[in-house]
């Protein structure tokens, strides 16, 4: 029982990441009709936003180390610490959550630039060409990051308080052995709130209503005198933000490196396909579902029956879904069903 709860929790936080990335991807596909292979790169850029922010905060200056008196010793000390003392230290400690504030405008700009600069020219081209051009773009973005930050993963630790584990077991009365890292719990809560925010935005605002209408029938919305293109550009920016934030908060779990985007890209496509192309709720549900499935498959009991299942379960599910129900679990009838 404990083990099962633990696996569900494990799956949920991974699922949260999948759900957020897939949400952005399917938002873009549903509105713009573009198959964006550069979407993983957005996730990676988000993670590197938190790296950049951390680097910015810890710009340091050499100061004399007073604890060593035998000779003149110098140590690096961040300006923030020099100026604000302990408060500065706290800010640096909280660099990952704070970098959310930094990442939102940056990701919005990146998203808008991508859509205006490249993707809008590909609305009318075939899916194959969209895949190819965004694949090229993903390579470019990944290489730029590699040039700037190097090829090694860069650790971006979570704030000190959250580095421990939460004793969930004793909370629910299930035994002391069930513990869980705080940061993963926070990630889960964070992803749920972002998902809720996106859905609220789409369902409760006028802008969201137009976007939803545009997803249903773009032409009619255009005929009603609404500038759909402009709104869709903003939607692309929104998708970039959602994906970027998923990356920002994921950086303490997985130290960012330049190819993390490509690794997550395939997974997020699989999630979108399982959920149904262009179905937002489907993407979220499939994200959590696949996350949980994957973590169950990595249990030792299951691995001993079917070895290696944890590595391929997601792809197996995807193959099965595409063959049996191509519109996905929650896809609308008639959308991409060939």
């Amino acid at each position, binding site marked *: 029982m404990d083990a099962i709860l633990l696996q569900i929790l494990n799956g949920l936080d991974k699922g949260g990441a999948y759900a957020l990335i897939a949400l952005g991807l399917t938002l873009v596909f549903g509105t713009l009709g573009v198959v964006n292979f550069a979407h993983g790169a957005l996730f990676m850029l988000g993670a590197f936003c938190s790296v950049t922010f951390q680097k910015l905060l810890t710009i340091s200056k050499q100061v004399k180390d007073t604890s060593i008196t035998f000779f003149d010793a110098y140590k690096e000390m961040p300006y923030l610490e020099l100026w604000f003392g302990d408060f500065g230290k706290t800010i640096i400690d909280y660099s990952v959550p704070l970098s959310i504030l930094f990442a939102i405008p940056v990701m919005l700009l990146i998203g808008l630039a991508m859509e205006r600069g*490249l993707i809008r020219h590909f609305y009318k081209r075939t*899916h194959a060409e969209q895949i*190819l*051009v965004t694949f090229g773009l993903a*390579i470019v973005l990944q290489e730029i990051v590699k040039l700037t930050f190097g090829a090694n993963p860069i650790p971006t630790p979570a704030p000190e308080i959250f580095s421990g584990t939460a004793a969930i077991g004793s909370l629910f009365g299930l035994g002391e052995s069930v513990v869980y890292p705080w940061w993963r719990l926070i990630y889960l809560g964070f992803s749920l709130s972002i998902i809720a925010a996106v859905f609220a935005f789409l369902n409760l605002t006028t802008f969201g209503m137009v976007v939803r209408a545009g997803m249903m029938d773009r032409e009619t919305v255009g005929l009603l005198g609404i500038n759909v293109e402009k709104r869709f550009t903003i939607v692309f920016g929104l998708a970039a933000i959602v994906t970027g934030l998923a990356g920002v908060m994921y950086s303490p779990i997985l130290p960012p490196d330049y190819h993390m985007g490509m690794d997550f890209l395939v997974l997020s496509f699989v999630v979108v396909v399982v959920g149904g192309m262009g179905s937002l709720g489907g993407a979220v549900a499939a994200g959590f579902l696949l996350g949980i499935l994957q973590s169950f498959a990595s249990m030792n009991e299951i691995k001993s029956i079917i070895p290696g299942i944890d590595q*391929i379960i997601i792809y197996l599910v995807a*193959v099965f879904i*595409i*063959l049996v129900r191509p519109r996905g679990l929650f896809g609308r009838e008639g959308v991409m069903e060939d």
Partner: protein
Amino acid sequence: MNINIPSIKKDLFVMLIFSVVILSMPMWLKPLGAGYPDLLQKFAIFGIFAVGYNVLFGLTGYLSFGHAAFLGVGSYTAVWSFKLLTMNVLPAILFSVILAGIAAAIIGFISLRRSGIYFSILTLAFAQMFYNMAYSVLTPITNGETGLQLSRSDPRIIDNMMAQAGASLPSPTLFGLEMSGYSGFYFCAVLLIIAFFISQRIFHSPFGMKLQAIKSNQTRMKYTGYNTRPYLLSAFVISGMYAGLAGALMAVTDPLAGAERMQWTASGEVVLMTILGGVGTLIGPLLGVGIIKYFENIFSAMNEQALLAAYSFMPDWLAKVMVTITSPFVGEGWHLTLGALFVVIVIFLPGGIMEGLGKIKNLFKSKKKDTFTEQIPPKLPEKAEPQKEVS
């Protein structure tokens, strides 16, 4: 669409020229600084890969992101054949092609039930499965991250029956001829010529025409009474076998197989080569391979010193500026150049270099026509051009 199929005589003539060009590569590539066996082998091997990929993507328009898996299957099979049977390359190649073909038949049979983006994702999913399994469950076969290597203690049944094992690690041979350096290149080159000839015959056969018909309008093709799937599956298996052959040759020239060959970005590379050269054309993919591998070789070896030397004809300050601008694109950053080039090609020249050449050719043609044929009324049906668009 071009309806008149060139006769086999014409094809043979083209083949003759092609063979001469390929076999004399060491000579005419020397002045370009690419005349050494390692690179030439790469040209030939990736040439085979791209030519095979073109049979699927170029003719049918099905964009597969999983061909690296067949490359990997070919490599592993070849190394196992070296380990278990003999260091002779022929059985290794034979087994590789057959096994890659079987793998392609299985994956193709399932993936071809869907088309468009679903097909791409299905092949992608299968390739990722192969890749992940090579690292985990299949480690006894693939040797995980270290990669599969030869060792002195391998059984090598046939070789050991013939002669006592030598003291040193054996290398792949063709009946005693060692497959390294130029002999390795010529071996690959001969296979490339054969592979190209087969692909040419496929392009010009009724079978190839049917594949092109599927590309231009599959629904219509079905209404004409053709069951399209067997044709698609054959194309998929053929291109998978080509990939297996390329993988085997990789193992032949360097007897080592690693799982990173199967990563999906490796499939992306062959797509890139095919697109760059000109998808759906015979010679285009080879051009793409040549250009990418050649510049990869040159660019990735470059550093700032070499750049400064290259710009030495400019004034000093300009040279420095140029070096700062261009240095991110060379050396380690070669992939950046590649990605950018790829984006530019897809945007402006979806037909690749072959389309560009065609455009230039048309430019000259139409100019000449204008001066001579102004009075003549326009011909009614324009001579149909071969299909160019990527769909």
